[in-house]
């Protein structure tokens, strides 16, 4: 009984410490005080400001949010498409070639962000590629693809290898077999891959920081970074962080519940 109490207490204390800063931000998003930590009474003005574009210091925060979303959406879509085909290709490979491609695929995941960022920065310099929207998006696609591949590959291994052939056998052309049989089978993996890629892109700071060039492109993380270095966060960032936190919470719960349901269905079988 004592053991159980200590075990539970340990977990809850860790969780409390883990969430303290996030809760702190969330609480402070409901007051107007300029300095984080001061409480000047409950208010939802920061939220109102955020949504009505009335952020101090112009529209740069809104632009950053906009950029972040666009880049994440494009990067996640492209890498989902690309990564799915790549996964099918890898799945059908054998031996040394397969290992080589899988190794290449794992590099961006193992490499720290700084190395990925610096190496891509050097690439764009080397190719005389103007750094900006395009370079950041390409960089994001680069580190997102491996995660899509890794999400789709298990679906391919779980899939009955004869399914595609069964479709051909029943008269489907390779194209029909792909769309009518493979895609529905791979869809769960593609969706997790997309979500994974999307959050990775949203989250990224280091790679964006090195590949955005000098045109003044800001995403949310680089904005926060510059903002914090200037001293003190823009108060409107607090509601924004709170919203992001809630969205991620919901996304994660959805995917996990889906997974649990799928697992339960498999268990029933």
């Amino acid at each position: 009984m004592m053991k159980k109490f200590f075990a539970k207490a340990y977990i809850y204390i860790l969780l409390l410490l883990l969430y303290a800063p996030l809760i702190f931000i969330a609480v402070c998003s409901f007051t107007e005080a300029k300095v984080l930590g001061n409480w000047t009474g409950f208010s939802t003005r920061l939220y109102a400001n955020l949504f009505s574009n009335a952020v101090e210091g112009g529209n740069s925060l809104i632009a950053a949010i906009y950029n972040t979303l666009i880049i994440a959406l494009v990067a996640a879509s492209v890498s989902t498409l690309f990564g799915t085909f790549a996964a099918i290709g890898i799945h059908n490979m054998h031996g040394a070639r397969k290992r080589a491609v899988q190794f290449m695929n794992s590099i961006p995941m193992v490499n720290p962000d700084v190395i990925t960022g610096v190496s891509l920065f050097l690439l764009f310099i080397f190719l005389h590629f103007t750094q900006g929207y395009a370079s950041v998006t390409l960089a994001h696609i680069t580190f997102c693809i491996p995660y899509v591949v890794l999400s789709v590959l298990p679906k391919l291994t779980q899939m009955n290898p004869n399914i595609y052939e069964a479709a051909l056998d029943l008269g489907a052309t390779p194209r029909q077999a792909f769309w009518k049989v493979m895609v529905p089978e791979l869809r769960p993996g593609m969706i997790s891959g997309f979500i994974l890629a999307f959050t990775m892109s949203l989250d990224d700071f280091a790679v964006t920081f090195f590949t955005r060039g000098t045109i003044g492109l800001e995403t949310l993380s680089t904005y926060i970074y510059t903002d914090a270095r200037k001293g003190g966060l823009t108060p409107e960032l607090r509601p924004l962080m709170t919203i992001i936190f809630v969205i991620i919470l919901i996304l994660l719960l959805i995917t996990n519940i889906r997974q649990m349901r799928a697992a339960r269905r498999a268990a029933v079988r």
Partner: protein
Amino acid sequence: MLPYVIFMAIFVVLPLLLILVYAFQDGEGHFTFEYISKFFSDKDSLSTFAVSLEVAIENTFFCILIGYPAAWILANKKYNRSTVTIILFILPMWINALIRTLATAELFSMIEIPLGKGTLLYGMAYDYLPFMIYPIYNILNRMDPSYAEAAEDLGANQWQVFWKVTVPLSMPGVLSGVMMVFMPTVSTFAISEFLTNNKIKLFGTIIQENINSSTWNYGAALSLIMLIIIGITTLLSNSKEEQTEGGLI
């Protein structure tokens, strides 16, 4: 398949080769050892490097110390039955580390704890703890309970079961946890700035400074050194590490 291989070759392999190329090149494109030797003769760089390694090792150690018991409790059906608790632990991984770090720093300044080495280590452990807990939890959770039962059957008490069966079998999880904590800590740059108010500089920071101030070649040389450190760690842990199946979500 071919487009994918070409894409990865251009955006993954070529850039890494470019680090190598730029590290051994001077401004005019001639081969030189200048930047590599500059690192080994520059006291500041060397001490930053040493501090980075020290912080990374300490942080990894703390994460194991705190994270292992947590993962063990979470994977133990006696103490925890809900998946929600484990989701709560991995959830912060998906929140921008910058945001979490800033919030931690602000919290410190509110309760008036001076920023320095202590706060840096706390913040690092705070940022990376979930990355340690998750892989260990994963492997403990999938571990066949009959191993422990077999050990008990052969006369091991609970303590012996833990040290002689559970811990050795969970080593692959600990190793991937070490990879997921050590690598980002040794290379991080923004986090240390916020947590120490720029008092402690880490290796990532000097790479970033050199790239930003257009001394790319030196930046590339420093990146190459970091790549070597990472290569060594990967090799060391890869020899034993088992591929952890499935993604995080």
